[in-house]
Structures are given as structure tokens and as C-alpha cells.
């Protein structure tokens, strides 16, 4: 009887314990949100100052409606987890906004009112059940004046950027005015004349995309002032700009305007511009004067080549034998070439850059220039002359390629407070420089800014051709509708860049902080070293091979010069031919051996690491125990 009582007591105790366990966890789950220690290097789980500023500066009340179909969470645990994160983030946002941001949660079940509203707000449903029911996971933010914006679907791939996306959405709903982009271009990027008219130039696809998000204002290439309304100035292939215009851009930047520049040492499309702009090869770029004051310089007369990023193009000089060949100066950039931490390129997968230039980051400018796009390590600066013309000698380019083992900068972001490039005052009035109307141009009136009042926000890209349709987009007509199918993300890149540049400072500071790519640098180094070693040897062997081939050809030619000449082929010549042939085989074998060598170092590193990690400590422990055991035995015996 006593035992039974004890057992019952014990069971009751256990039940109570289990109940406490559940209660404690339920309590902590709902109440202890946000109490966490963020150990990640990039502080991925801590809200940035940018978000705080945006939330604190909210003037009007906003309502955030978060839609999440429970069924989606049931089908995909990852979405369920992501939803938890988004919801907690928004709850935190709501706290930080001081009540100005209200959060509402909805589960849009199939055929419910909530689903109808989700669809009406433009949310994207994904099929989750066999019967085709849709699952939703999106956000709609509505202002008191019925302005709204949405994230149609929270894509798992953008999880690292979720804070940026949320903050930007709230920011745009709270500040609905479209930003103005000033376009200063020497290329006919925005089209000229009406469609269908003689001599009319079609607007490039890139401008269609930009106009979707921005007010575009064209700035003449001889402007002496950038209008005040311009938030971001987009400069495309600034060639032959006068000092007066350069000065205008300089002052615009010092005033705190942001700038996106596409400079190019070799614009393939130059011919399509107005004839007066077709200046001879770019041995001089006036724009470098500005770039230098920002701590950058475009290397003139050189384009960047990259073996790994080379685009494979078809070579049609012989139509009977279509061939593909790597164009080492037409680059297809991938994740490895982008600074994944930069929001501008954060979700870019692929960029095409035909004959991009090389930016040099100048030391001691006091500004902070960060590469955004770079080549890989197997890159080289190529003379512009070698890639110009209708059909450059691609095989020769490939043969003459000597990797320099460094990453060439193709685009860079500049932050900091630049000083003027016109230290000696405004550029002087020049009689020779007249604008189209014949009036002499003059620098804008007003005092000159010598130093930036606000931190500058600049992105310089060393390629202008990347904007042209043919390099990144195919426009198809589909039942009378124009459909643009991008081949590369050049368009997204430009719109992203304008977006980030023209956003508030707070928004710009909100860089995607998720660095997902952390490569084995040691392996890369080994590969690089082996490669340099291999290239030298390869070249030596190639030269040898070539000499042998020449000799062989010579000997054989002697034999072909007619029957009597054939008789002239002496037995010595015959043995020489045979010898040359066998030597060639030997050289080829050697070449292959060198190539194999390349991979051996890395393989042996892997094998070593495997051994150390799997067997290393167990062996040491076993050995230690053995020694201990022997020592003890000896002691016992003694």
C-alpha cells in the first residue's frame, strides 16, 4: 500500500514535471522573442541602424499585412521557419516604430476572403497541394492614404536580404514619390525620334526597365548644370565631355547627389552613336579627372580578360565548320566575381560584360573604394587594339593569354567625402567650346563647393556595352506583346544599382550582410601556383612542339616538290622525319603529364586533411593509451 502511494506520487511528480517543461517552453517561446546572442561575423540576426532610422522616421501610420498559408508551412518546413523569422522581424519593426507600424497576420485559406484580398494585393500564390490549392507567403504594406506596396512572395533565396526588402518596402510606401534619374549619355541609349520614323533609334531595353521604377530626365552632354531634381545621375560612356560639364558633374556629386557611371575604354557600340562623338581610340578620357578625385582611375588602352569567365561564342569565319571559341575579353561573370555582400549585386546570378575596362583603386584618396565586380585570378589586361574590329583574332588572344594572378576591378563603389576635381576654381570660359545653339557655355553660376557636404554615394562600372540589348536580353513578340527575356542579369544590376544609390542614406547603408560564399582560399592559392608553374612549362613545350612541326613540314615539303625532288629525300631526311615525329609524341606526353601534375597538389592536400581529421587523433589517443599501459605494467612488475 505504501509502495503504491509512492508510485502514484512519483507519477504525479513526473506529470507535473512534464507540464512545467511544456509551460516553461511555451512561455519562453511567446515572451522571450528577440533575446538572443548574435555570434555571426556579419551580425545577420541584428537589425541594422538603417532599419532603425527608417522606422523611427515614419510620419504616418502604416499597416503591414503578412499573409502566410499554414498549409505551405506544413508542406515545407523551411518556409515555416522563414515565416517565423519574418513575423518576428516585423514584430520587432512594429516595436521600433513606436506603434506607427501595425502588424496584421492572415492565413489565406483556399476560397476565403483573405485569399481574395491577397490576390488583389498582387501576392503570388504557389501551388501546394495536388488539387492545385495555392499557398501564399507575402507582405502588403498599406499607408493611411491607401498607398500600398508588396512583397509578392518571400523567396528563400533572398533570406539573407530579408531585412533590406522589408525596410525598403516600408520606406517606399512611406515615401511614395518616384525618384528622378538624370541620364547623361553619349550612346543613343534612350532612343532618338519616334518609333518607326526614318532614322529613329529604338530605345534600349535597359531604359524600359529603368522607366518602370524611375522618372528619367535626359541631361544634354554639354550641360553646364545638373538640375536640382535629379537624385541619381547615370553617366554612360562619358567621352569628350567639356570641362564645363565635368565641373557640373563634380559639383553635383559634392552636393550629395549619387552617381552611376559606365565608363569604357572600348565601347563596341561607339559606331552607333552620333558621328560627332566618334572620337578615335580612347587614349584620353576626360572623365578620369573626376574618377581620380574619387580615388579611382580607368586604365586606358586596356581591357580585362579572364580565362574562367570567358564567354564561349561561335566563330563563323568558316561556315562549313562552325566552331566555338572562348572570347577571353567577353566576360560572363558569375557569383564568384561579385561582392556577394553588396546589395547591388546580391541576387545577381550572371552578368555579361563585353570588353570591360579595368579600374585602378588609387591609394591615399581618403575615400573608400570597394570592388563590386572583379575578374577571377586567371585574368590579364589586354591591349584594346587586339579586341577591336569586326573579327578580332580570338585564337591568338587565347594563345597569348598570360594570367597575371590578380583580380582586376571591373566595378567599384565609392564611399566617403570627396574633394572637388577643380581645385583651381571653376573651369574658365572658352571661346572654342560652344554648345549646339552657338552660345558659349559657361560654368554654372554660384559658389563652388570644394568638398562634399554629405558622404558621396558612387558606383563606377568599367563597361558601357553591357547596357546594350544584344548582350543581355532577347526581345520577342508574343501575340503582339513585347516580351523581354533576359539572358543575363544586366538589367537587374542597373535597376538595383539605381535603386540602392537613390534610396535614402539609411537604405543604402543596409547592405545585405549574408556572405554565403567562403571559398577555400588555400586551395585557390595552390591551384594558382600550380597553374603559373604549369603555364611556363606548357609554353616551353608548345614552342618545342611548334619547332618540331615546322621542321617536319619543311622536310615533308621537300618530299612533295615533285617526283625527282622526292628522290632527293635522303635516308638521313627520312630518319630525321621519323625522329621528329617520335619527339613530338614525347613532348605531347610531357605536356599531359604537366597537366596532371596541376591537380596532384590539391588531391594530396585533401588526402592529408582526411587522414588528420579521421585517423589523426584516434591514432594519437591509441598510442598514448598503449604507452600508459606499458608504463603501468612495468611499474607493477617492478
Amino acid at each position, binding site marked *: 500500500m505504501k509502495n503504491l502511494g509512492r508510485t502514484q506520487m512519483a507519477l504525479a*511528480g513526473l506529470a507535473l514535471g512534464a507540464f512545467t517543461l511544456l509551460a516553461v517552453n*511555451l512561455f519562453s517561446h511567446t515572451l522571450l522573442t528577440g533575446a538572443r546572442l548574435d555570434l555571426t561575423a556579419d551580425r*545577420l540576426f541584428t537589425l541594422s541602424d538603417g532599419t532603425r532610422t527608417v522606422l523611427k522616421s515614419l510620419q504616418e501610420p502604416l499597416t503591414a499585412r503578412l499573409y502566410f498559408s499554414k498549409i505551405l508551412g506544413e508542406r515545407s518546413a523551411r518556409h515555416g521557419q522563414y515565416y517565423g523569422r519574418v513575423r518576428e522581424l516585423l514584430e520587432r519593426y512594429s516595436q521600433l516604430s513606436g506603434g506607427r507600424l501595425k502588424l496584421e497576420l492572415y492565413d489565406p485559406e483556399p476560397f476565403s476572403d483573405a485569399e481574395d484580398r491577397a490576390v488583389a494585393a498582387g501576392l503570388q500564390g504557389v501551388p501546394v497541394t495536388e488539387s492545385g490549392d495555392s499557398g501564399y507567403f507575402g507582405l502588403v504594406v498599406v499607408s493611411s492614404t491607401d498607398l500600398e506596396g508588396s512583397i509578392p512572395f518571400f523567396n528563400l533565396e533572398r533570406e539573407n536580404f530579408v531585412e533590406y526588402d522589408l525596410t525598403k518596402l516600408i520606406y517606399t510606401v512611406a515615401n511614395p514619390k518616384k525618384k528622378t534619374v538624370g541620364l547623361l549619355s553619349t550612346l543613343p541609349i534612350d532612343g532618338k525620334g519616334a518609333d518607326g520614323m526614318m532614322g529613329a533609334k529604338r530605345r534600349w531595353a535597359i531604359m524600359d526597365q529603368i522607366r518602370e521604377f524611375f522618372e528619367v530626365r535626359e541631361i544634354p552632354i554639354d550641360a553646364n548644370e545638373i538640375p536640382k531634381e535629379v537624385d541619381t545621375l547615370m553617366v554612360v560612356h562619358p567621352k569628350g565631355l567639356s570641362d564645363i560639364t565635368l565641373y557640373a558633374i563634380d559639383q553635383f556629386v559634392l552636393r550629395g547627389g549619387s552617381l552611376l557611371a559606365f565608363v569604357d575604354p572600348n565601347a563596341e557600340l561607339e559606331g552607333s552613336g552620333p558621328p560627332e562623338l566618334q572620337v578615335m581610340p580612347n587614349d584620353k578620357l576626360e572623365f578620369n579627372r573626376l574618377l581620380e578625385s574619387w580615388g579611382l582611375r580607368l586604365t586606358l588602352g586596356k581591357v580585362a580578360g579572364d580565362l574562367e569567365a570567358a564567354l564561349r561564342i561561335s566563330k563563323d569565319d568558316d561556315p562549313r565548320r562552325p566552331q566555338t571559341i572562348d572570347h577571353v575579353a567577353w566576360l560572363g561573370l558569375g557569383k564568384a566575381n561579385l561582392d556577394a555582400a553588396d546589395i547591388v549585386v546580391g541576387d545577381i546570378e550572371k552578368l555579361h560584360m563585353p570588353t570591360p575596362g579595368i579600374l585602378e583603386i588609387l591609394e591615399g584618396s581618403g575615400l573608400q573604394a570597394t570592388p563590386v565586380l572583379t575578374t577571377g585570378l586567371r585574368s590579364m589586361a589586354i591591349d584594346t587594339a587586339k579586341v577591336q574590329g569586326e573579327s578580332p583574332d580570338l585564337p591568338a588572344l587565347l594563345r597569348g593569354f598570360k594570367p597575371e594572378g590578380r583580380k582586376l576591378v571591373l566595378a567599384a563603389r565609392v564611399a566617403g567625402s570627396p574633394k572637388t576635381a577643380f581645385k583651381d576654381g571653376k573651369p574658365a570660359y572658352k571661346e572654342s567650346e560652344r554648345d549646339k545653339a552657338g552660345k558659349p557655355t559657361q560654368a554654372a553660376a554660384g559658389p563652388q563647393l570644394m568638398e562634399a557636404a554629405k558622404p558621396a554615394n558612387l558606383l563606377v562600372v568599367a563597361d558601357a556595352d553591357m547596357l546594350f540589348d544584344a548582350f543581355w536580353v532577347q526581345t520577342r513578340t508574343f501575340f503582339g506583346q513585347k516580351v523581354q527575356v533576359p539572358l543575363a542579369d544586366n538589367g537587374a544590376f542597373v535597376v538595383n544599382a539605381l535603386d540602392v544609390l537613390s534610396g535614402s542614406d539609411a537604405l543604402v547603408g543596409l547592405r545585405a550582410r549574408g556572405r554565403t560564399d*567562403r*571559398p577555400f*582560399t588555400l*586551395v585557390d592559392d595552390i591551384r594558382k601556383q600550380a597553374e603559373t608553374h604549369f603555364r611556363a612549362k606548357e609554353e616551353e613545350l608548345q614552342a618545342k612542339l611548334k619547332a618540331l612541326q615546322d621542321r617536319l613540314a619543311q622536310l615533308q615539303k621537300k618530299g612533295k616538290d615533285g617526283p625527282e625532288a622526292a628522290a632527293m629525300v635522303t635516308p638521313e631526311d627520312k630518319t630525321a622525319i621519323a625522329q621528329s615525329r617520335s619527339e613530338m609524341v614525347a613532348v605531347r606526353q610531357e605536356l599531359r603529364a604537366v597537366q596532371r601534375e596541376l591537380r596532384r597538389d590539391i588531391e594530396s592536400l585533401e588526402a592529408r586533411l582526411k587522414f588528420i*581529421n579521421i585517423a589523426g587523433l584516434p591514432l594519437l*589517443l591509441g598510442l598514448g593509451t598503449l604507452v600508459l599501459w606499458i608504463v603501468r605494467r612495468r611499474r607493477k612488475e617492478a
Partner: protein
Amino acid sequence: MRNVAVIAKRELRSYFSTPLALVFIVIFLALTGAFPFYLGGFFAKGQANLEGFFGFHPWLYLLLVPALAMRLWAEERKTGTIELLMTLPISTAEAVLGKFLAAWAFAGVALALTFPMWITVNVLGDPDNGVVVASYLGSFLMAGAFLAIGSCLSAVTKNQVIAFIVAATACFLFTMSGMELVLNFFRAWAPDALVETIASLSFLTHFTSVTKGVIDIRDLVFFVSTIAFWLFATAVAVELKKSV
């Protein structure tokens, strides 16, 4: 508290008096080393992180920790040394805690001996070491939770093999409970609240959340409260059996 330390020391010493400890550590190290390389594609992926390494820990613990825990009480009962232990002037709670801490420290040593992996990844590239620290902590906490379950189930039986099998099963359930496979089974008939509760008890969910590099107080509360509950259950079991 002193009694706890005494018990823990006695227990730890007993681990090393047999080759069991060595065998356990060697198997653990060999497997934690081999899995990321051969199954996780650690080298082929070329990424300087330990995701692949820590990802296997729950599954390794599933087999190894019950093996470590099975002898905690079952052996004492089988050999009768439990009578001796209970005659000592210490409380059941102290004995339970002492034994658990010894086993946990032992698991900690085994885990710490995987340090070559950490060095490896730092030599190869530039990993986020904050994430690695968090992951180690998460792994250690999870090992503690597994051990606490094992300790309780070892206290209910004399047979170590049974203790092992039951503990492994229980740990398996706790690991799996966050998985869709399991939850869908419950969803068909159980109320949502129950399903949520089951999901929230999953070791795997809490562990993966920590291995992202952020130590959420809720994950901490979960592991600590789980350990506390199972140790309490151990004490109850030991008490009950004592009187039988």
C-alpha cells in the same frame, strides 16, 4: 554541491579504468571526421564552413550517446553497487546530477577533440568562427539533452542493452519530432496545439537554429529545461527502484 563533484570525479575515473572510454572517443572522432568528407562532400563543396560537420551530429549522438548513458544506472543496479552508493551520505539528486555531469563532461571532451576540423577549416579558408562557436555550443547542449534522456532510461532497467535500445528510440523520436514526416502523421487527427507542441520539442529544430550562429534564449531554455526534466525523472526512477 561538494558531493556532486565527488560523484562526478568517481564516475569520470571509472570511465577511464576500462577501455570503453577510449573506444567511444575513437569511434566518435573517426565518424565525425569521416562523415563530412565522405558523405557531406566537404572538400568538393569548397566552402569554409562546418555545416556539413555539425549536420551529422544529431545522427551520431543518436547511436553514441545512448551507449554512453546506458551504463550510468543500469550497471550500478546490475552489479549491486547502487546499494553501496545509496548508503553514502548523499542525496539521490546529488548522485543523479554528479553522474550526469561526469557523462556530459566526457561527451564534452569527445566533442572538444574534434578541434582538428576547426583548424582545418581555418587553414583552408576564412570561416565565420562565430557560427562555429555557436554550433559547438549547440552540439554540446544537444548531447546533454540526449544524455539526460539516456540517464533516465538507464535508471529504469537493469539491462544495459534494453537501456540502450529504449534510449536510442526515445532520442530518435525527439530528434525526428520536428520533421514533416512525423508532424504530418499527427496533423491528420491531433489538434493544432498538440502538433505545435510536438514540433517545438524537436532537438533538430533547436539545434539547427543555433548552428546558424545565433544563440536564441528560447533554444537555451529548451535544452536546459529538457535536461532538468529528464534528470528529475531519473531521480524519481532511482528513488522508486531503491524502495523496491
